[in-house]
């Protein structure tokens, strides 16, 4: 019979693993990259950008001045009211002539009334980033809530629980039309 091999002392594997653990703790970061995704408008080729006229009722200007004060459609407003105002603007429940018009569009075999409303977000050079993101967040929240309501109505589920195809339908039926206007050189810091 072969000689019995002595057992390898395994008490130091814990130390080795601890060293590895410390190494990874030091050199890595928690990978949570989240944020508000946007698409910038492309630089127009020609100079005459002003020509493309959007119907007045279809656009609302949200402005943040250099003192972080918020104006929505020419009236000063607290940020807590912005979401409901924007929801009303984008959905236009009573078909009021002041609010954006809707257009029948065929999406995925069914016809939906799609709002033509555009939110135009303007800021000064002196606006703080925090206020800007807070307003962006409210606008995204307004759109997300409208999408949720729409999917509840059409599919009986929340937007996040829909399948990818259904989500595409909802995204087209409730578009996120937030335009970030060309910066204006006012309120220099």
């Amino acid at each position: 019979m072969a000689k019995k091999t002595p057992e390898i002392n395994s008490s130091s594997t814990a130390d080795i693993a601890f060293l590895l653990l410390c190494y990874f703790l030091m050199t890595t970061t928690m990978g949570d990259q989240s944020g508000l995704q946007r698409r910038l408008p492309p630089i127009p080729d020609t100079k005459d950008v002003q020509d493309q006229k959007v119907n007045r009722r279809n656009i609302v200007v949200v402005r943040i001045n250099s003192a972080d004060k918020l104006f929505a459609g020419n009236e000063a407003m607290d940020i807590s009211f912005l979401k409901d105002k924007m929801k009303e603007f984008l959905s236009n429940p009573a078909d009021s002539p002041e609010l954006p018009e809707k257009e029948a569009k065929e999406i995925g075999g069914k016809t939906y009334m799609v709002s033509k409303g555009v939110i135009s977000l303007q800021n000064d050079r002196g606006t703080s980033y925090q206020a800007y993101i807070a307003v962006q967040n409210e606008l995204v929240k307004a759109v997300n809530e409208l999408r949720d309501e729409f999917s509840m109505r059409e599919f009986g589920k929340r937007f996040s629980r829909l399948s990818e195809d259904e989500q595409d339908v909802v995204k087209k039926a409730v578009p996120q039309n937030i335009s970030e206007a060309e910066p204006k050189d006012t309120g220099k810091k």
Partner: protein
Amino acid sequence: MSKFGGSRNNKSVPGISSGSLSDIVFMLLFFFMVTTQMRETENKVVVKLPEASEAAKLERKDLSANINIGSPTRQYQAMYGTDARIQLNDSFKTIDDIRDFIASERDAMSEADRSLMTVNLRVDEDVRMGIVSDVKQELRRCSALKIMYASRKPGGDK
């Protein structure tokens, strides 16, 4: 009292087996290896992300280019002051360098992925919008149109 005292006299306490300790540590190790990612660059600017409850996760992390904007950390303040600066990769840069940066990031990606590139704007919450607008204009000129305003969920401490 007598119960414990008696048992100690009768037999010795068995030693705790440390054989499974390494398994536990390995499990911790794997957890951290999976949930974390390598830190590519050293932060030279202080970035405290603003809060946004509607923040959505970036799907393809490997297709993002990071632009950090904030005031320099303390060790660089003597050289660069406390005004907001742009950090690309590992060094302080100006607006004019963004074009080259985007081009090199594009080159590093495969042909099919180039249109999916997202520019991740990591901007400190105290920065004024002026510099951010300049960066956005420059990105439009480079036709890097997909951007993300990095932000954190409220309640999360980071």
